[in-house]
């Protein structure tokens, strides 16, 4: 109807900051949930609250955390990146091949990360320049990249990686596992990029109202490129780390991780409708999923339950997100 929205509008003065509070409360709830889970697991299993297990937990967590942060950048623009799992698989294979071929470690890492960034740019090209829906474009690259990895390795496992490279992932610095240090080294700049830079602001603007962003002189296209490049770049970091962790290159690595990263991000409060998300949220979300995984293993729970728990968590959290949207609209 042409003029239904013009009914008398009340004008509340000095409104409370509702929207800010929701995200904060959600993060607090997640943190509380984590602490409760940890306590429960410490009480109910002898092995959870050990140094070795905690270290293991952090190592497991670091992969999904890094991917979830990248995924969050994309989801904030109201997009989705299904290709990250395949990017992990391909880049872990690429770096294994480079290292096995004798390329120095530093050069192998740089080349791999460059390839990761390029893969993100390819996603963005399809979405921006070919105007494909993000779901379709990244579904296509997910499928293609996975096969490409199998093609270049002929389905074989790549071994013979330098010991120094492999040991990195099992060592610790100042008592903290190296892999988790990488999480911090990535989360901090990502925090500044997303929450403290104008580029981060534009990610939110594009996710909220691309037309408003455009009319403000924001380059919507460049912003979308940024989001997908960050996502794929972080996935390629995970590719490097995973190659170090398992010590070989397997093209099928990271299968299903795109869904883990989306789940972590959404559980961490990122709205699939765009313009809502933080860096801390996906970190907490990934930690929660890792803990559920780890705890279920320790308690000898049938591993098939893990997926069911994750699924229920997603439904509950997205339902609350929907409620919030209905109120603010």
């Amino acid at each position: 109807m042409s003029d239904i929205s013009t009914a008398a509008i009340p004008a509340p003065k000095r409104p409370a900051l509702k929207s800010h509070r929701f995200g904060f409360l959600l993060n607090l709830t997640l943190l509380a949930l984590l602490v409760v889970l940890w306590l429960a697991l410490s009480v109910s299993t002898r092995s959870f609250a050990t140094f070795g297990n905690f270290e293991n937990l952090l190592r497991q967590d670091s992969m999904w955390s890094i991917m979830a942060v990248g995924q969050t950048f994309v989801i904030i623009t109201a997009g989705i990146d299904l290709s990250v799992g395949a990017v992990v698989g391909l880049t872990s294979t690429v770096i294994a091949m480079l290292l096995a071929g004798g390329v120095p470690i530093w050069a192998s890492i740089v080349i791999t990360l460059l390839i990761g960034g390029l893969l993100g740019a390819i996603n963005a090209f399809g979405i921006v320049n070919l105007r494909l829906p993000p779901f379709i474009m990244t579904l296509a690259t997910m499928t293609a990249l996975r096969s490409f990895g199998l093609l270049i390795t002929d389905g074989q496992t790549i071994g013979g990686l330098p010991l120094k490279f492999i040991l990195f992932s099992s060592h610790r610095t100042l008592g903290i596992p190296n892999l988790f240090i990488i999480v911090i080294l990535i989360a901090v700049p990502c925090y500044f990029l997303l929450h403290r830079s104008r580029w981060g602001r534009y990610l939110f603007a594009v996710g909220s109202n691309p037309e408003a962003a455009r009319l403000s002189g924001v380059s919507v296209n460049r912003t979308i490129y940024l989001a997908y490049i960050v996502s794929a770049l972080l996935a390629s970091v995970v590719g490097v780390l995973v190659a170090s962790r398992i010590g070989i290159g397997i093209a099928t690595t990271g299968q299903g991780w795109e869904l883990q990263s989306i789940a972590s991000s959404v559980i961490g409060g990122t709205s699939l409708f765009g313009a809502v998300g933080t860096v801390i949220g996906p970190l907490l979300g990934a930690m929660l999923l890792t803990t559920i995984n780890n705890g279920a293993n320790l308690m000898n729970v049938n591993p098939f339950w893990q997926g069911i728990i994750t699924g229920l968590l997603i439904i509950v959290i997205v339902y609350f997100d929907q409620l919030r949207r209905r109120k603010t609209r």
Partner: protein
Amino acid sequence: MDNPAPRPPTDAPILELRQVDKRFLGTHALKQVDLAFRQGEIHAIVGENGAGKSTLIKILTGAHVRSAGTILWQGREVALASPLDAISLGINAVHQEVVLCSHLTVAANIFLGDERTNAGLLRDRAMVAEAQRLLDDLGFDLRADAVLGDLAIGQQQLVATARAAARGVKFLIFDEPTAYLTRQDTDKLFRLIRRLNGEGVTIVYISHRMEEIFQLADRVSVLRDGQKVATHVVAETNERELIRDMVARTIEEVHYKEAIPAGDVLLEVTGLSGPGFRDVSLTVRRGEVVGLYGLVGAGRSEFVQCLFGRTKRSAGQVKLRGEPVTIHHESDAIARGIALVPESRRDQGLCLNMGVGFNLNLPVFGRISPTGLVDTGAERRGAAKQIADLRIVAASAGVPAATLSGGNQQKIVVGKWLNHGAELFIFDEPTVGVDVGTKVEIYKVFASLLKAGAGIILISSYLPEVYDLSDRLHVFSRGTIVASHDAKSAHPETILTEAIGV
């Protein structure tokens, strides 16, 4: 028409349109518009809905690119091909519908695209403080750190204005800025406009509220059907003259209407009130068109939404075919033979990718598939009957609705409800955005409906249309019927005056 005399060179325009033309698919939105805005003036633009005002703004702000013509900025020709072009010249607009990011804070919106940074990092606190200073300075009772989506629409409008004021604007366009504002907020806005104008900003002010134009503007231009018909100095004109310019008719616009005798009463509404309207009484007989005219926000659509069961009535009675009825839900309305033909038939009326026959049968699939399986014979017969009765021009019942002309699409929407057995048709702006030929086709659909014994409620913001087609015309203003006229018993100028409520 009466173009103003050539101006002395001291009135050098800051922005000038020459023969600017804009065509969209099927519509000619602006026709060779010549318009000059003088440095530092407040220039009002008036015109009926659909006269081309919105298109004009979009061209001035670079959101749309003109199809032909030239634009001069301070005497130099400019491209004005993107929003960035307009912003960098100092052209900004406050839109009727707020175009901001509802998830961001007020301060973030004010500085969007123009953030304050320090070594690449946002200076959020400084921006909030600066925005707060600006808002306080303007007398807006708003918090700069509030999230925009938490504010009422009127307040968001003030934010949009503050935002334009914050970025060194030279030429500021207001598109119906007061539509959602309270009295006090309107006063604040006017003070702001005068202040900006005092600082040398050229203001373009678009409104259908006459009193605002006489309060604010130096000059006023009238648009009608995409053409500029006149520019007046406000001090030398009056409301009557402006209204006459807005509704003046040309011969080709006379609308097609057959005389059909009215039958028994189909719908009788007495004292109906609901959200956004109050105390509406009207009667629709078979074979009759009842027109509802009013400006956007006058309550016509709210009334129809309630009649159709989308909102709850708070008082009054509705009788259908002589029996009192309560319509709780859209499905009640549909079951009782009321059909709503929405304004945007492509989005709300049709499944565009599906076939003509599919669309014609959409409301009756339940009836023609008693076993759960669709009776394809009944489907084919139903579609064939409507295609023949309404003379829908389609290669076959299988071609997608999207491939048909606008008029034929409108016929499908009507046909599907006829197929269902509807007798009371509510048309919401049936001819918005269609060309003259399609309009005639749609009017023919009206005639065949009336002959078949249906009654029509016609909502239109286009006065010539309701004026010509209605057997009775009710004028809405501020939520209720302020005047009712039998066919052509009142002059169009009177009707527009009543609707504006001066």
